[in-house]
């Protein structure tokens, strides 16, 4: 029997992997891939709780909303990156320093 903690540890591993991807990559789309990792880790967490009988169906419902938010975030972020690419002619996020940040 797979315990709840197995899923939670896998979720933690996916979270850390996503964080490493976000921090280490300079390609904006790779950063978006890291964000998807973190969102999937959160989803796996709530679904694990839900399927072990903690909180009923609330976890699966929250996972549906997370998927909706992830899809909208990907669409808007890709539109922003296309604009970024049109203006700066590269997808390297380190070059987007026009605001001197």
């Amino acid at each position, binding site marked *: 029997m797979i315990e709840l903690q197995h899923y939670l540890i896998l979720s933690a591993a996916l979270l850390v*992997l996503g964080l490493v991807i976000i921090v280490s990559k300079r390609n904006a789309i790779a950063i978006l891939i890291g964000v998807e990792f973190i969102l999937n880790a959160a989803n796996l967490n709530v679904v694990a709780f839900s399927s072990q009988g903690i909180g009923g169906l609330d976890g*699966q419902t929250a996972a549906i909303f997370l998927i909706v938010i992830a899809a909208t975030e990907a669409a808007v972020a890709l539109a922003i990156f296309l604009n970024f690419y049109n203006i700066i002619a590269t997808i390297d996020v380190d070059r987007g320093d026009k605001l001197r940040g």
Partner: protein
Amino acid sequence: MIKPLFFYIFALSSVAAGVAIIASTNIVRMAYWLIGMLLSVAGLYFLQGAYFLGVIQIIVYAGGVAVLMVFGVMLTSQRVAAQLRPRRWEVLWLLVTAAMLLTGIVATLLDARWSPEEAAASNNVADFGIHLLGKFVGPFELASILLLIALLGAAYLARPKVPTVKPEDTPK
């Protein structure tokens, strides 16, 4: 007995996809590894009995978001490969920090105790729909508004800068 085997297959493939993305410098391969991770997570949903979520994960994520990523890769294709690597000491610090974070989270998880309720959640899609449109009807409507805003916002942001209709095309 077959469930732990499938759990470890899906878990290892999703973690391996993450490691492959970190090690890779080719953005197209990263997008395809992302699809592998999404399908593994969908398999984990099926394994937990969340069949509806697994199907939604495959349709929306692997079918929609990942294809969107591949489109983004194609539209911003570039000749950056070698110079977009982090420096060696940056990699060292990053790995140390990530290992500490993972150790902390796992140690906390191993300490925690949850008491499962007796009645496991129903996996019936009908119950799920009643739950979604009963208790969660407010967030459901908000999600529809969010989708509309994202549709309009993405179409507005990604519009071409130059007018596509030439002056001689317009009727005099």
